[in-house]
């Protein structure tokens, strides 16, 4: 029998190791695996390489992980989001590395990693500073930049519903990077609002099939939301 559920986020992050690369899903709060990241803070692993759209907000979740000095490198599209105060402080001191990737390229590189694609050509960034030093190619009269897949040892995401097979359903703007990250993560951990029995998600409504997901933790919404105020 397949049973991917775990009782706590602390159990879920147990195998994360020093130096690991980790994708964190979410865009703003929707889909952010804040409680898995807080468990990671408690665990205290170091030297992490993190892939996320931003670079944390305030001192909770990714912001806190960076504040704690656990992160060696951030791969992001928008690390200058106003709340990313700890990243910005460390970056200006030269104490954290940044790989800046346009948001659409970031999403596509993650999808490529999860899809067995060895690399792809995108027009985005050709002829700009972010395209500098990259292989370019003119295809059917247009200039493209070569981009490689972005893999990670772990992916951590948040979904609305999950079952013991790892099937996940999102809600509204929660999907964002999370399906692609589930596909790309060597080990994919999901925290979910609701744990439902097998069959509790209609096959039409499974956004991330369980094949991509290794562990599921039931984890009600945390009152601490990041970047945006509390829900009304």
């Amino acid at each position, binding site marked *: 029998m397949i049973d991917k559920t775990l009782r706590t986020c602390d159990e879920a992050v147990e195998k994360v190791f020093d130096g690991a690369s980790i994708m964190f899903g979410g*865009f*703003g*709060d*929707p889909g952010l695996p804040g409680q898995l990241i807080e468990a990671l803070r408690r665990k205290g692993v170091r030297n992490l390489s993190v892939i996320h759209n931003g670079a944390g907000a305030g001192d909770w979740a990714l912001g806190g992980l960076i504040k704690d000095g656990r992160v060696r490198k951030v791969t992001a599209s928008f*690390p200058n989001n106003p709340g*990313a105060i700890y990243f910005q402080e460390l970056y200006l001191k030269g104490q954290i590395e940044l790989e800046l990737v346009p948001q659409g390229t*970031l999403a596509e590189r993650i999808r490529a990693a999860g899809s067995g694609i060895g690399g792809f050509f995108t027009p985005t960034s050709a002829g700009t500073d972010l395209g500098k030093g990259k292989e370019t190619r003119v295809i059917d009269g247009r200039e493209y930049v070569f981009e490689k897949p972005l893999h990670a040892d772990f992916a951590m995401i948040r979904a609305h519903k999950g079952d013991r097979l790892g099937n996940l359903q999102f809600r*509204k703007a929660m999907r964002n990077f999370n399906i692609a990250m589930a596909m790309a993560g060597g080990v994919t951990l999901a925290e979910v609002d609701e744990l439902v029995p097998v069959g509790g998600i209609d096959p039409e409504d499974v956004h991330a099939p369980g094949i991509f997901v290794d562990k599921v933790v039931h984890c009600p919404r945390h009152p601490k939301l990041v970047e*945006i105020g*509390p829900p009304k």
Partner: protein
Amino acid sequence: MKLTRDGVAYRVACDLPDGSYVNLGIGIPTLVSSYLSPEKEIMFHSENGILGMGPIAAPGTEDVDLINAGKQYVTMLPGGSFFDHPMSFAMVRGGHITHTVLGALEVAANGDLANWRTPGEKVPGVGGAMDLAFGIKNVWVTTTHVTNKGKPKILKACTLPLTAPHCVKRIYTDMALIDVTPEGLLLREVAPGIEVADVLANTDAPLKVAKDCQAMAIPENIRGVALAAA
């Protein structure tokens, strides 16, 4: 008199065609949706996986899972849809979004756009700006005509790092409406009360004046306050 931010947004809104699929950047572009004719049906896209986005959520009605790319709580209109980032950027990169309205730090005569790295900014961030500028056919720019130090922002060539080369099709400023054409910039309209000579004096790039160049039709009530330069 220079247009207000709302004046610029109003002028842009007049030009968005019925049935267009539009991504609005942060700042003046966000205001565009307030000035659309109710006769037009326009689908707004948000990079984080939304098509058919409605206005900002009224206080007390926010849904914590429903934010726009600027991380404001928003609403959905009937006929909208949710999807993930790879599909969202397939819409952008694949040329399906018909229009994007973006802010600008500099625009060059050849349509080059610089809007992602401000001078002196120490931590870089690009977000979805490049994908929008590269992927979308109609990149329209809204900006103050000059910086807050009075320097032209429409230049012979950009000095700041480019967002994308040759991407801008039309420029809406607080002084003018300018088309980017294969033959260079073409002044098509001036703000009410602004002289063509004022526009030319405040533009660094060569600027042809259209034969039918005219004053913008902007209602009195949204003309008043001068734009604060970005």
